[in-house]
């Protein structure tokens, strides 16, 4: 698979040119083209911004909700079920429902208008400067449940003794939060952030279904750009070279993530073993 990818990167071929093994050898030309392609550079930046922004959004909301639900209260199970629903909704369905909600005379603008009293017509879907924000909001809506369930599990597995000890020593809940709970939750937090970031880097269905990379190139992330190049412009060789570069980039990121996860998993395993051996 990788070899074929490489083959295409070195050979000029597009769908119109007959059989692929007859393609002309062009050496590094396509890679040169890719590295000089500012559109690809922007796609990488956009992907990183999209993944970073939505990860932070998902995390803050998910963490906050999990924090509020760390102790049992009436109706907790119901809230839990409600909160995981977006995660269970098919991304492509979210895209189309998002369109129904966000088009210019849709219910979201209608509600903003009613609440504010003005006549709001935010062009969520056609204004290039907010399109990326729109998909980020959808991504956050879609995947906040992910960080939420992971953090709920994290809070549930926190040992009690350190918390009680801190309370007996008279620490404020603010200090208990920052100096006891957060450090104990660190492996869980890293895990949630890393996995979410990686998934967001690969996000395709929502951006594609809603924007196809547009308006202009406002939502052209790495996957969208590769898809456009290969399947809309039929520049298979360039698409392959783009894929190759993107894959190298992702491998670097994933290897980093795996290092981090291996480290944190050890901490997690200790966390799950400790209560048992301690009785």
């Amino acid at each position, binding site marked *: 698979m*990788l070899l*074929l*990818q490489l083959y*295409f990167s070195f050979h000029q071929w597009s769908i119109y040119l007959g059989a*692929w093994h007859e393609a002309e050898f062009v050496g590094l030309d396509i890679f040169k083209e890719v590295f000089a392609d500012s559109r690809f550079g922007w796609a990488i930046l956009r992907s990183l911004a999209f993944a970073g922004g939505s990860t932070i959004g998902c995390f803050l*909301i998910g963490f*906050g*909700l999990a924090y*509020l639900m760390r102790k049992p*209260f009436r109706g907790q199970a119901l*809230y*839990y079920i*409600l*909160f*995981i*629903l*977006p*995660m*269970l*909704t*098919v991304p*492509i*369905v979210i895209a*189309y*429902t*998002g369109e*129904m*909600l966000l088009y210019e005379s*849709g*219910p979201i603008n*209608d*509600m903003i208008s009613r609440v504010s009293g003005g006549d709001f017509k935010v062009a969520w879907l056609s204004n290039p400067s907010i399109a990326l924000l729109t998909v980020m909001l959808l991504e956050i*809506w879609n995947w906040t449940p992910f960080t939420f*369930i*992971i953090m709920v*599990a994290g809070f*549930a*597995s926190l040992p009690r003794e350190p918390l009680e000890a801190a309370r007996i020593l008279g620490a404020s809940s603010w200090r208990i939060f920052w100096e006891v709970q957060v450090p104990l939750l660190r492996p*869980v937090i890293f895990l949630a952030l890393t*996995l979410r970031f990686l998934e967001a880097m*690969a996000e*395709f*269905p929502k951006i*594609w*279904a809603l924007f196809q990379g547009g308006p202009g190139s406002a939502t052209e992330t*790495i*996957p969208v750009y*590769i*898809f456009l190049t*290969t399947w809309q412009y039929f520049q298979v060789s360039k*698409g*392959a070279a783009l894929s190759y570069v*993107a*894959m190298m980039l*992702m491998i670097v990121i*994933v290897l980093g993530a*795996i290092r981090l996860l291996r480290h944190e*998993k050890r901490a*997690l395993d200790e966390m*799950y073993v400790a209560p048992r051996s301690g009785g």
Partner: protein
Amino acid sequence: MTRSQKNRVAAVVRYAVLTVWALIVAFPIYWMVATSFKPSEQWFAWPAVYFPDPLTLDNYLDVWTGRQEIATAQYIISAQRPWLALGNSFLIAFSATSLAVVYGAAIAYGVSRYKILSDLRMFQLLMLRMIPPIVIVAPLSLYYSELGLLDSAVGLILIYFLTSLPFAVWMIKSFIDEVPREVEQAAEILGAPRWRTLLEIVLPLVRSGLVATFLFILILTWSEYLLALILSKTEVVTLPVELSKYQGTSEGRVYGRQAALSVGITVPLIIIGIIIRKHLARGFSFGMIRR
């Protein structure tokens, strides 16, 4: 403020915040369901129509019984298309998931008991999932076209099997790890043959875990879009791809019908997800988080 007053304020704030988020979560889902019951003139009404009136089943009938043929720019969405897509989705999701669970269980048992994969190899397995599929799908589609797997159920089953294998192995391993080794040793000392120990001792203990893994992976394969779009879009269409064909029909946007189909795609997943809600965190974290 006394302590109990403080607690009460905290409770009110908590309920307020949680309810706000619950509304944010519920509204789009409500809107999808409501739109699916709206007559066509209310799909785009301004100001928006919040409660469909009159309620109509037309959208469901149009979509699922093909009462009305909808001509699109590229495709004809004809009578049984959604049912065909539903059938394909079922076939593909169930086959790929079963394969992944059976194969994953075998690997997971080996890793848990005999360390057939080192710690590092286990993490390398995760790369199958973590590298975005878009970067390998172009050559994959060429291989598939040479092998005749393009636009076939087998092709999609194979790739879904591969991409869900890391989840299967990791998740099932976390369940097997929880079965004490002593149970197996005891059975062996009592003279039970290896296969009986596996079938009658270990399997029942991890059965609920296997079911949870199965349903979890089913959710992922059911909703996959990118690979389905590229590797099969004319013959073997899955539900998510079928839905995307409603975009850009010749009569403009058909929100009501899209919504009716969306409800059909989503409801099974929501039911499954609620059934395995206790295991979702374990699934998404590759078994690294347990409850």
